[in-house]
């Protein structure tokens, strides 16, 4: 997948520890433009931390991260400028509860991209409409269901027109019947060519949507490959063990 152009995202030898705990132990990962990568692995394997490092929400201990060839972990880099290009959606939505849906979506475009409010709102309405949320625009987030809130969070990230979208277990906090509506949104984004890095426990979804699946174990990418190979014939014993447990739990 590595053409002549720089990769959308490149992670080189990334280490990150919290105190004595090495959460990431030398992650190497390259993501091409339009590629969809699913990160799977047990809780605590480092999926979320990896995503937070890529969005510079965590400082890293060792290694380098590039976005379209530009090192974002270099000294003196403007983190706010980097974050405009990388969207992230959190497990717990993290919408701004004091703002209407439309204001949640337009905050970044208005304050960071300095776009006129009317333009930002027109664009936001188009996005909300596309994801079936137009009639929620004037409401406060706590009037919405979890699935709707998470879709708003995705729209909020998209409104910044990021080159890369990071999704951190975005369905884990949802009631089962609300998961599908969020996954459908992500499917549509993948079909539209959005480059995405998705940490998920939804194995069926990962298998359907991802170009490549990375299995994280104890802070390393233990195995990666096309979904068909990872889910059908994993090479590593740990991957097999993990997938067996998932199947036993009825989640695949």
């Amino acid at each position: 997948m590595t053409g002549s152009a720089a990769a959308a995202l490149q992670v080189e030898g990334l280490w990150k520890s919290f105190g004595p705990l090495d959460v990431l132990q030398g992650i190497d990962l390259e993501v091409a433009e339009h590629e969809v990568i699913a990160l799977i692995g047990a809780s605590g394997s480092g999926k979320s931390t990896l995503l937070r490092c890529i969005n510079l929400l965590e400082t890293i201990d060792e290694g380098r991260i590039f976005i379209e060839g530009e090192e974002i972990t270099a000294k003196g880099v403007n983190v706010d400028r980097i974050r405009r290009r990388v969207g992230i959606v959190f497990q717990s939505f993290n919408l701004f509860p004091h703002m209407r849906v439309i204001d949640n979506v337009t905050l970044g475009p208005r304050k960071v991209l300095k776009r006129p409010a009317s333009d930002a709102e027109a664009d936001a309405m188009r996005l909300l409409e596309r994801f079936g949320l137009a009639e929620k625009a004037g409401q406060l987030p706590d009037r919405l269901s979890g699935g709707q809130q998470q879709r708003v969070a995705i729209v909020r990230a998209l409104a910044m027109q990021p080159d890369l979208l990071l999704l951190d277990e975005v369905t884990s906090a949802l009631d089962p019947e609300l998961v599908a509506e969020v996954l459908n949104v992500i499917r549509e984004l993948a079909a539209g060519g959005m480059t995405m890095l998705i940490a998920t426990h939804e194995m069926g979804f990962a298998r359907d949507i991802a170009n490549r699946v990375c299995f994280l174990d104890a802070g390393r990418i233990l195995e990666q490959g096309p979904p068909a190979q990872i889910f059908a014939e994993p090479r590593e014993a740990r991957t097999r063990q993990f997938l067996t447990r998932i199947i036993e739990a009825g989640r695949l």
Partner: protein
Amino acid sequence: MTAQGGPDATSRGGPASLPGSRAQRRRDERTSALRSTLVAFLSTFVVFGVLVYIVVNSPGWPAVQASFFAPDIFWSSLPGIVAAFLVNIQLFLISEVLILALALVLAVARSSTAPVLFPVRLMATVYVDIFRALPGVLVIYILGFGIPGLNLPGVPTDPFLYAIVALTLIYSAYVSEVYRAGIASIHPSQTAAARSLGLSQPQALRYVVLPQAIRRVVPPLLNDFIGLQKDTVLVSYIGVVEIFRQSQIVEAGTFNFTPYLATALVFLVVTIPLARFTDWLVARQARRGGGASGAASQVASALGRSRGGQAAP
């Protein structure tokens, strides 16, 4: 209980006389509610009756009655006392605005994390420590007598001005701690979400953290302002003729304490509704879940902040 044949027998329309029927339970409830009310009324009547009896029959009662409950002095002093209370209201309103602003600056300074802002953080911390440690009366004395006493040219001597400055200095320290607690109560994930959109730290504070923090601390802020309203009487010590000073003046002229009773009544009339309003606001927050989002939006709506319709600009 439900032996009767038809399906209706066990439901709302069941025989009213059956034990356990809805109608019977209603009757029982009404009877016991009536009994509770009666008991509460009687016990209140007895307790207060005994208290009044003890006071009125105490050996010093005639003297106390004459010096605290003189109706003619009460009515003659009341207009002057109410007029003087306008000074307290002015003191309260002006210093409240200044306190809200200064305290916010202090709280933001203390909540900052950037290394370059360390001196600012230090100054704010020292300020809050000092003014929370000093008794308010001392600050009022030192400012009100000390600074004019320097006889510096151009330095104002109006005690009203020093009263405002002193109250602002004292209360800003307390109120900044209320703000700071509010800021600390906003989950870091809110800042993370804001920063992930590319907002700078000050922008995240301005647009995401502070609006939520301030709405959340409205009830404790009101609580502090009830305190401020009462503490305006402290500035009588530096010669501001406000309600307490006014009642002292009347007392000095009549050798009667009734004006103090009038002053107390004025404070009760003004402060109790404000305290009730604060309690109501707190109860409302708690009742509606009191979560981050809940509390924020309720306080916002309680304050009459209207929300526009669909995507209004």
